[in-house]
């Protein structure tokens, strides 16, 4: 196995991109990534395309070939990776394995979702497929419903409050204002979150990540030759992944995502780093309660301790640890298949020192955390600057 680096990244603006279809989104992000990596289309040897439910959202399957085609990479092998909301992170990991193994030198990972072409009810149904179709979705248990059950239990076990959950959304909206690719550029208050429409008690609209269109693309190369393309390659120090039961009810605990716990610990061990070594992280805040769980299960805080720390501002940009500087899924938007790839792009931007107003001072080590379903998949990557 050899070391792997990210040599390029590209994003579209996330949000309601009514003027663009799926193919325009991926081409826009792909072109940026290629320019950023300073490579030619002919250099690309393999493409991993991630989308959660393009078949459900726009009726299009066979996504990877379409992505390779639209990004202008002629005849390269192209493989779709689907792992619900963790499709992007899972695709990055497949690209990492392909390059680390020595089988391919240049791999492109492109994530995309086009969600606003269907109604909210249809989108809710499509996303419900990330849970257990026969025993959750078939009973009308939606995705926010599953996280609401987690929140209800977390509030019961750890006295977590609705205000603390709301503080996650407030922070991530504030960060998103400083990100030109983000869906929302509007500060919100705790009170606004608490008074927003209830989706599934106790979660309100402003506790939930939005329905979004968008794409993200990154380029990977062996670290040994990465400087040939890019002055500031970012090393992937660890790539880890774990799974768990698809149905929430089958888990031993509702208040811990065991897949996150396992993938996180595996990643720290592989990178020979501790949670306290991480300067900046993009964690999977599909709902505000999910960021609280992530902060605990990635060992940044003990169980039941994260909510207060977030409320106290410890996870603001340049706080004790800077969390979701992009705005996270909540503020930046959550085009499902693109999210895991976008997280890598944000950490690369931070570690290069190119994050502008939202730059974390002296960021050397970053982490990404991408969850599928209500926790049946978790993917964790650790990245660092190469000095």
């Amino acid at each position: 196995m050899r070391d792997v680096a990210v040599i390029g990244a590209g994003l579209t603006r996330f949000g309601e991109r009514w003027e663009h279809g799926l193919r325009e989104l991926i081409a826009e992000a792909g072109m940026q990534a290629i320019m950023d990596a300073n490579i030619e289309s002919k250099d690309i040897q393999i493409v991993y395309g991630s989308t959660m439910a393009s078949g459900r959202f726009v009726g299009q399957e066979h996504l990877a070939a379409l992505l390779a085609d639209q990004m202008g990479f002629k005849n390269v092998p192209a493989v779709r990776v689907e792992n619900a909301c963790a499709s992007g992170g899972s695709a990055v990991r497949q690209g990492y394995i392909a390059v680390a193994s020595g089988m391919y030198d240049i791999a492109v990972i492109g994530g995309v979702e086009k969600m606003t072409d269907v109604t909210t009810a249809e989108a809710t149904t499509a996303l419900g497929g990330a849970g257990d179709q026969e025993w959750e979705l078939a009973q009308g248990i939606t995705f926010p419903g599953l996280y609401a059950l987690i929140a209800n239990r977390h509030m019961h076990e750890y006295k977590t409050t609705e205000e603390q959950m709301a503080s996650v959304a407030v922070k991530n909206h504030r960060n998103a204002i400083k990100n030109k690719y983000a869906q929302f550029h509007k500060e919100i208050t705790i009170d606004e979150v608490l008074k927003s429409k209830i989706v599934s008690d106790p979660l309100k609209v402003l506790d939930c990540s939005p329905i979004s269109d968008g794409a993200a693309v990154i380029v990977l190369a062996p670290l040994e030759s990465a400087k040939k393309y890019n002055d500031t390659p970012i090393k992937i120090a660890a790539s880890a992944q774990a799974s768990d039961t698809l149905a929430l009810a089958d888990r031993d605990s509702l208040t811990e995502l065991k897949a996150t716990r396992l993938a996180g610990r595996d990643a720290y061990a592989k990178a020979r780093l501790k949670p306290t070594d991480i300067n900046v992280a993009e964690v999977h805040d599909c709902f505000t309660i999910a960021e609280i769980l992530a902060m605990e299960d990635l060992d940044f805080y003990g169980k039941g301790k994260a909510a207060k720390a977030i409320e106290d501002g410890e996870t603001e940009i340049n706080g004790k640890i800077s969390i979701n500087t992009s705005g996270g899924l909540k503020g930046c938007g959550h085009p499902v298949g693109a999210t895991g790839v976008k997280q890598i792009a944000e950490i690369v931007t931070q570690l290069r020192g190119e994050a502008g107003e939202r730059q974390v001072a002296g960021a050397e080590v970053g982490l990404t955390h991408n969850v599928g379903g209500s926790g049946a998949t978790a993917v964790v990557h650790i990245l660092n600057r190469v000095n």
Partner: protein
Amino acid sequence: MERASASLWRRINERYNLVGNKCENCGRIYFPKRIVCRQCGRKTKMTETKLSGNGKVYAVTKIRVPAQAFKDSAPYTVAVVELEEGPRVEGHVVDAGNGEVKIGTKVHSVFRKMHADGEEGLIYYHFKFEPV
């Protein structure tokens, strides 16, 4: 999505009668049924077992923004119920009257209509829970 009847028919025993299974090797009870025991792997020895339907609410929410097929029945209360035999199951909680459904509320299973595929499609039946 409209489904063929076989997809409902094969689950009748589980969805109507709350029949799960038990691994005779380790004693663990599963609902819904599994072919392979998560603890015993190739040593799995499953037999069917009917669950009592008695349990306690372990976590609960009221879903107000529904999935497509449930748009006429929102809001509805959904819980993770811990059955007295051990397994936790997800299900609707109905007929609570004015009583609050919360963690610890005792419930038992009842047989109810879940939803229908429009005016002429299949009708889906399912166990639900009601407070004792």
